[in-house]
Structure formats: structure tokens, C-alpha cells
């Protein structure tokens, strides 16, 4: 069955502070719900295999290291084109499967674009002074423009945490709006760095503001904070996405990043998306994992499904 891949892209909305300030997030209750997300649903056998394939299709295969080189990025891109060993992909009937995107720093964008030519795999660039976001606004905007010019079609920006911590919602809105404008046709993912926002209420409010200012995706973290994607934070963000959709009719995507490295975790995230938002939000158009080591665990699980024997990492190509 074919699902439409076209999402009516979010636009920039007015800042509605009444809405923002009325948003609540009760941490204890959210943690309780989060604790049962993994126990209320269980996918087994061929269903699990299919769900894991779906998880692969949503991975933003990422390298964000100081020692990244063009060669390393080419290897990653090759893995993005063929995330599963050929025989495994064939036995699952998923030989056209690719990851959702490849995510790199600006300097690696052109290498990635070249390595992914003719594939449908987008290149995402982290931007705006990633990960701290404390370079000048002018430079941050220029960085977006340069990455877009270099061929990135997805830009992962970082918000200024200080605007949230100082409750300067207007400044956060204005900044996000400028970033969105600088992206042009490239899709923008707003990284909230939730591990640095202090409270879940701040996460909820920052999520709403970024969506009001035109974010296509909201994303938990850079992977560089001490606490990255968690289920409670994810619940808050996907509930904000749901509320935003109900109020405006625009579908915004979600990207948890950092700390998701097990196939089992990926299943819980996918079922959370399905339960809280619907099946549409389990597809790469509206859902991504920011992860580097998740794919390896999924490959091993899929080989176990295919052969009945537990796998080993050296049996799968490194990315």
C-alpha cells in the first residue's frame, strides 16, 4: 500500500504567548506514562522485523566528530544506501531500504552530497554554531545559507537555550523565524537541547514556539548534552506536536537524538509515535532517529530474525 509522501509544509505562524504559557507538563505523570510505553505494546517475529526495517528508514545516520574526514563520510553514505547486508535485505524483501538521511557538519556536506548522488537520501547539516549555538547571529544565519548552498536539504539548527532559560519567548521565536527563513526550501529541524532546558514545561513551551516560528521538525538534542533523548522528554514534545496539529492543521516531525542505541528502544519510540500521533508519524517524512550506533543493533536483530541464530557485529558492514 502506498502512503502519500507529501506533507503540507509548516509555515510561520503568529507568536501566541497565551497558548504557550497555558501549556503544562506534569513530570511525575509524564514519567509514569513513559514507563508503560514499553510495557503496553510488544511486536514480535515478522512484525518486529518490519518495524525494525521501518526504524532504519527513519535513521539520520550521523557522524559529528572533530576527526570527520571526507573518506569517513563516504563510508557512512555508502552504509546509508545499503544499511543491511545484501542477503539479509533480500530475505526480508527490503532490498531498496535506505536510511532516512545522512547527518554531518557543514564542512562535510559536499562530500556527503557527492557520495549520495542519484540516491533519494537527503543530506542534513547541523548548523548555527552547533552544538552550543553561541556564535554571532549573523554567522549562524550565514552558516545555514552556506550549507544550503552546498547541497544540504535539511538543516538541524540549535536554539539559544538562554532564551528559554530567561523565558524570553519573543527572542526565541524571532531567532527561529530567522533560521527558517535562511533555510529557504531546505527543511529545518529545531534542536531544543532539552537536557539543558531545566524542566519539561520549558521543553513543552520551547517546542510550541519553534513550531509557531516554522520548524519542520523538532529535535531533542545535539547528542553532546549530558542528557539527550529520553522517553519523558519525547512524550512532551510529541504531545506538543499533536496539540500544534490540532490547533493549526500543520504536521511537524519529531527527531529524538542521542542515547538511542538498541533495537528495542527504537521499537518503543515507534510505538510511542503510533500511539500518541498515528502511523503517519512513524515514517521518515515526520520521524527520524538521530543515531550512530542504533543501526548496528538493528542489523544484528534482523539477522537473528532471518536465521534464528544470534548475530555478531563483525558480520555487518561498519558505517
Amino acid at each position, binding site marked *: 500500500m502506498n*502512503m502519500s509522501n507529501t506533507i503540507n509544509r509548516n509555515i510561520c505562524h503568529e507568536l501566541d504567548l497565551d497558548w504557550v504559557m497555558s501549556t503544562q507538563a506534569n513530570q511525575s505523570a*509524564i514519567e509514569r506514562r513513559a514507563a508503560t510505553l514499553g510495557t503496553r*505494546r510488544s511486536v514480535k517475529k*515478522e512484525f518486529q522485523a518490519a518495524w525494525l526495517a*521501518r526504524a532504519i528508514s527513519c535513521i539520520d545516520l550521523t557522524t559529528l566528530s572533530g576527526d570527520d574526514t571526507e573518506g569517513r563520510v563516504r563510508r557512512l553514505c555508502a552504509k546509508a544506501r545499503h544499511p543491511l547486508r545484501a542477503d539479509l535485505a533480500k530475505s526480508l524483501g527490503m532490498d531498496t531500504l535506505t536510511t532516512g538521511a545522512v547527518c554531518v557538519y557543514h564542512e562535510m556536506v559536499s562530500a556527503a552530497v557527492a557520495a549520495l548522488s542519484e540516491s533519494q537520501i537527503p543530506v542534513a547539516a547541523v548548523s548555527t554554531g552547533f552544538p552550543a549555538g553561541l556564535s554571532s547571529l549573523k554567522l549562524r544565519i550565514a552558516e545555514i545559507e552556506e550549507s544550503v548552498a552546498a547541497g544540504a536539504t535539511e538543516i538541524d539548527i540549535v536554539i539559544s537555550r538562554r532564551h528559554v532559560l530567561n523565558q524570553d519567548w519573543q527572542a526565541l521565536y524571532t531567532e527561529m523565524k530567522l533560521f527558517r527563513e535562511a533555510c529557504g526550501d531546505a527543511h529545518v529541524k529545531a534542536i531544543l537541547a532539552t537536557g539543558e532546558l531545566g524542566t519539561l514545561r520549558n521543553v513543552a513551551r520551547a517546542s510550541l514556539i519553534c513550531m509557531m516560528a516554522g520548524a519542520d521538525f523538532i529535535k531533542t538534542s545535539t547528542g553532546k548534552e549530558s542528557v539527550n533523548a529520553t522517553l519523558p522528554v519525547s512524550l512532551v514534545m510529541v504531545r506538543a506536536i499533536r496539540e500544534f496539529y490540532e490547533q493549526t492543521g500543520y504536521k511537524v516531525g519529531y527527531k529524538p537524538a542521542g542515547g538511542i542505541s538498541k533495537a528495542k528502544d527504537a521499537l518503543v519510540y515507534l510505538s510511542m509515535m*503510533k500511539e500518541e500521533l498515528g502511523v503517519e508519524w512513524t515514517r521518515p517524512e515526520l520521524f527520524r532517529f538521530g543515531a550512530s550506533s542504533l543501526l548496528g543493533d538493528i542489523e544484528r536483530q534482523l539477522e537473528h530474525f532471518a536465521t534464528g541464530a544470534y548475530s555478531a557485529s563483525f558480520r555487518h558492514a561498519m558505517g
Partner: protein
Amino acid sequence: MDIKEIYETMDYGTAPESTDEANAWLAKNNRIFGHFIDGEFVSGTGHFETINPATGKSLAHVSQASSADVDSAVAAASHAFYDWSKSSGFERAKVLYALARNIQKHARLFSVAETLDNGKPIRESRDVDIPLVHRHFYYHAGMAQLMSKELPHREPIGVCGQIIPWNFPMLMLAWKIAPALAMGNTVVLKPAETTSLTALLFAEICAQSGVPRGVVNIVTGDGDVGDMIVRHKDVHKIAFTGSTDVGCKIRRATAGSGKSLTLELGGKSPFIVFDDADLDSAAEGVVDAIWFNQGQVCCAGSRLLVQAGVADKFHSKLVNRMKKLRIGDPLDKSVDMGAINNQAQLDRIKSMLSSCDPSKITTVATTMPDDGYYHPPTLIQDVETSDTLMQEEIFGPVLVSTTFRTPSEAVALANNTRYGLAASVWSENINLALGMAPKLKAGVVWVNGTNFFDAAAGFGGTKESGFGREGGWEGLMAYTRPVNVPKEPAKYSATETIINRAASINRTYKNYVAGKHSRPDGGYTKQIADPSNAATYDIPISNRKDLRNAVEAANKAIGWSSSTGHLRSQILYYFAENLSARANEFAALIDTFQPRGISGADEVEATLETIFECAAWSDKFDGDVRNVPMRGLALSLNEPVGTIAAFAPAEHALLGLVHMIATTIAVGNRVIVFPSEINPVTAGELIQVIETSDIPAGVVNILFADHSDIAKHTAMHMDIDAVWCEENAAISSMVEEHSATNLKHTWTQMNAETEIREFLDHAIEKKTVWIPWGEG
């Protein structure tokens, strides 16, 4: 479906829990079960099927106990009580610990057996019911260990008859058996007839855990078996969890038998959502409140009260959430709701809904299995308070909702029910949320949460939801009684009596109601004489209308219940001071009526000390904080019962009367007290002391009445919360029987030896308030 297809649809498929072990256990028993009596399985008679509600098919046959079976179970328990009650706390702790461990070791078998027999989702039996069961045994292993040091003045009651329902078969068994055994009692337990299997599995575990023969006996069967246990002369205590109707019958059946009784009954608990709540979390809370265990939960949040301004938004969130619930085979690990336990219950739910306007009903359009007893999650909006569905317990996955405008209206709606089990309050405003807790008439209040349970936290109801608590220290009250320690006769220095009644002017005694002296409604008085016939006194004869007026006055004085302990303490001291000023006069009066026994002077002095002790407790009868596995607090609060009607003992007309007054009002109750019939004159004189002591109008009301005439009306009055009378009083049986009209508390076991502390324990109602916290 091939993988590519699932990849597109993202269906869950099925994830069935294996039943191999459970089936092997059933097969080992040939799918036929008898009873567990005196440490052995005995074959039963009158076998009947126990059905898997998920399929409607038979699982096994269990037995209908005969009266001979019940007799032998009770005899075994009586015999075992002798040694078990004398065993050390350490010995009992070892047994309870072994039970906890062995249940934990077989947790999955218990979970699967529970789901097979009950129909609840395996997720719940696995993650909620069974973990709470072993937690309960661990916790009470500790209570057994601590009993001799922490409860030195309490002793076991004897043979406990325990009758439990089908909604949480193992958990209710644990709530009953663990505290009973910890305190040195022995038990005869009857599981519900539709869910006997896990109790029988537990019996096997008992045999393996070193439970001595006869300490635990399990007999199966229907309500007739329960009735045999209730009426059995050698059973000393009845603990029942189930419907309010059956609870009333048990109250009547045990009236006057001297059996101690606790009842955990029905509810129609409010789920209150304020406009500043985290609405998404509150919607999730509703799922846990009414769609947990298919809504077959006595404390289910079955009445949604939502603040008008967010009602549409909240209902819309709720309907969307409902659509995601998965209903089906309870053994499927991805199922949210399983089967209703039995056909009769399913029929009852359907019939209750049949009269409802279909346009108000929202259900989930989901496919449900063809066989078995399933009911979809259901929301009924805009239900008025006058609607039966808003008043009666449905005991199914059906939520009724209405709106409120202000916090006080929320309280009024929440309390507008004959039940009082639990309440859930959702608001991010700490003042609002915590301020609601004391105003809600319920045994348990959950703030920003629902259906929290733990062995350390008391659980139980008020009003027609029953009485008694399970869990925590208060839960031990139900399985112990005070050791009667003869009091040392009070020794006070004698005071010279100087009074000359002959010279007095004609004396008029009236009732004292709402702070006023009032003539009895009937206009009659009766003349009584002192024992020496030296003088006669005209004493009013009150009737039910005087009672009605007194109850109205008492309930108007509700402010007393929220007054500070400091204020109540000062007033009690002042009361003592004013009584002391007239000590000689009262002493003489007592001596006149009570020529034998302690002297009037000594009784007055003892009375003054009693008031002092109550004054001392007024600002010290503290609640406490319970160590529950949650980030936050579980407060165990001591709240006044409300309006208490108390029959003063015949003897010790002053001391007995003042015990009733001072112990009740010290902790915030209002009291209607009926003075001694032999010496009402003392009470008549005491009225003047009361009215000069700053006790607010309506807090203390005194009615002169023939106890046997007024007792029935008192016990039946719907707006009285408790009735007290002395042990062996001729009226105690009548009081207990008629209290069944609204299941008000009765306390009929006090005597001259009873400690003040014991009075105070009966004058309060425990409320557990759960306050999860944390942000950032």
C-alpha cells in the same frame, strides 16, 4: 502479511503470552479442585465450572463448599490459632517472607493463571497485581517482626473469615491474608466463585512456605459459602471486599454477634480536572482510572468532573486517546483491555447503559473477539447529577462526565454521592490541588495521579464505601484488638462534699441542641428518683424529631472539624476548668446516684483528667508520612469521622458521658450524646458547664432519651457518620443491625478499661493523600 506490507501498515500483530506452565498446573490437578483445609487439599463436592472470560470456555471445575467443609475449615483455623497466635513475631515473619519469596518465584505462573481466570490483560497481572501481592507479603513480614515491640497493647483477634471479590483475586487475597497472619490470626478465605484458581495455587505455595496446618484455609463456592462463614459462631472477624449490597447484608448478619467487621465496598469516585491541569497527562490518568482492569475497580475514577472552560478540549483529547486503546485477548501483551470477568457482569453493564440516550455515548469502534465477555471503553458526556448513571456504580469500562465552574462546586459534586472511597485531583496549582484533599469525602485522594496502591499506605472508604483500612499501620487495627489491661483504680484526694439540694429552687432539665436548651419535641418528661428516693427529677423524653434537630445542628457545626487543634485544646482545658469550679456539686450528685463504687469526688477528678488528656491530644494526634515507592509523599491524615452519636454508659454518669464528648470533639467531630438513663441529672447539670466553656453551638448536643427507643432511629439516620455504645449494651446489636442502612461506623466494644487513645482511634478516619512531585 509479508514484511513489506507490515512495514507500510505498522500493525502490531499479536504477542501472546504462553499458557504452557499454567495449563500444566491445571492438568496436574486434573482440572478439578477441592478445598484447602488444615494444610491439605480435600476433594470437594458440587463441582462447577470456572470459565475463562476471554473465551467463554471452561478452565477447570471447582467445588461448592458444604457447611461441613466450612465447619472443618473453621475448626482447623481455631485449632491452629492456639499455637500460631503464640508464635513469635520472628517465626511469623519467616513464614510471611517465604510466602513473599515463593510468590515472586512463581510470579509469571500466578500472572498467567490470574489472566486466564479473571480476563484482565497480562500486562496488568504481570506488572501491577502480582508485584503488589508480593510487596504486601514482604511488608507484613516486617509487621509480624515488629508487632511485639511496636504494638505491645494489641493482640490477634482469632479466626478471620475473609471473603474476596473477582476483580483482583490474588491482590485481595494478599490484602486479607498478609495482615491477618502477621498479627497472629488464622484465616478461612473464600475467593469469588468465578476466580478461585489463584487462591488454590496460593494454597500450594502455603504448603511449600512453612505455613503451619490450619493457619490458612481456603474454601470455594458462591455466596452461600460466604454466608456460612459470616454466620459461623467460631469466626471472630469478618473481612469482606465486594459490593455494597452484600456488605449491608453482612453488617446485618453479624450485628450483635460480637464479630469484628471490616468492609471494602463500592464506589463512584470522582476524577476532577481543573483548567490548569496538564490535560494530556490527565487524559492518560483517565485511562488508568476507568479503563484499568476494564473499569472493574472499586476505586475506579468513574465520574469525570471537568472544569467548564477546558471541557471540550479535554473530552476531545479523551476521545482521541480512547481510539488508541486495544481491546482483545488479555494474554496478548499489546492489549490494553481484556474481558469483563463474567457474563452476568457484562449483562449488568449493558443493561445499565440501555436506558442512556445513545447520542451521549462515545465508544471505540473496534473489533472485539466473537467469544468471551468484552465491552468497549465507553464515555458518556453531559450526564446530570440526577442520572442513575452518575449515581450508581457501573463496575465496567464506562466513564460518565459532567462539568463544574469553581473549586467549591467541584467539591460539592464530588461529595454528592453515597460512596466515599477515592478521588483524583488534577491541577498544577499546589494551593488548589492540596486544598482539595481535605474537602473530599474519601478514604484516598490522589493528586495528579490515580490508582496508586502500596502496602504501606492505607486504603479504604467512608460512607457506603465501607469501613476499615487495608495497608499501613492502620490496616493492622482490623486484625488486632486491644489487650484489656485492668486500670489501676484512680486515687485522688477526697474532697468534702458540701451541697444542700433540699434548699434549691425547682430545677428544669432540657435537651441541649445547637447551643440552646430545648424542650423535647413530644413535650413529655419522665420523673426519675435517686436511689435513696430523697429527690425526684423531671427528665425530658426525646423522640426522633429531637434527634433530627440535633443531627442538623451537629452538621451545621462543620467548622469545628476544620478548626485548629490548638483551639480545640484550649476549649477543652476551659471545659475542665469550669467543671472543676463545680467539682463539689458534681461529686455530691454522683454520690447520690451512685452510692457504691468510686466516690463522686474521685469520679470528678478522673473526669477532669480525661478532659486534660483529650486536650493534650487535640493538637498532637498527628498523621504521618508513609514510605511508598514513589517520588513524593503519601500522607496518612487523621480526619474527624464527622457527626458521632454516642450512648453514654449507665454507670459513671459523668466520666462515661465526658469520655464520649471529650474524645470525639478533641479530634474535630461533632457529637450527639445520650446520657446515662440511670443518672441523667449529672448530664443535665453538665450542660451549663458546656455552654460556658466556649464550645461552639452544635458541637456537643445532649439528648435525654430512652436508649432502646432512640437507638434504631439513630443507627438508621443517614446523616450520622458513626454510632458508639458500650460493650454489652442492650442496644448494641440493634445499633449494628440498623447501621447497615448507610454502613455508618459502629463502635460497640468500649468498656471501662478502654484507653483514651483507643477512643481517639475510633474518632478519626484515615485518609491517604498521594502527592507525587518533582519538576526539573
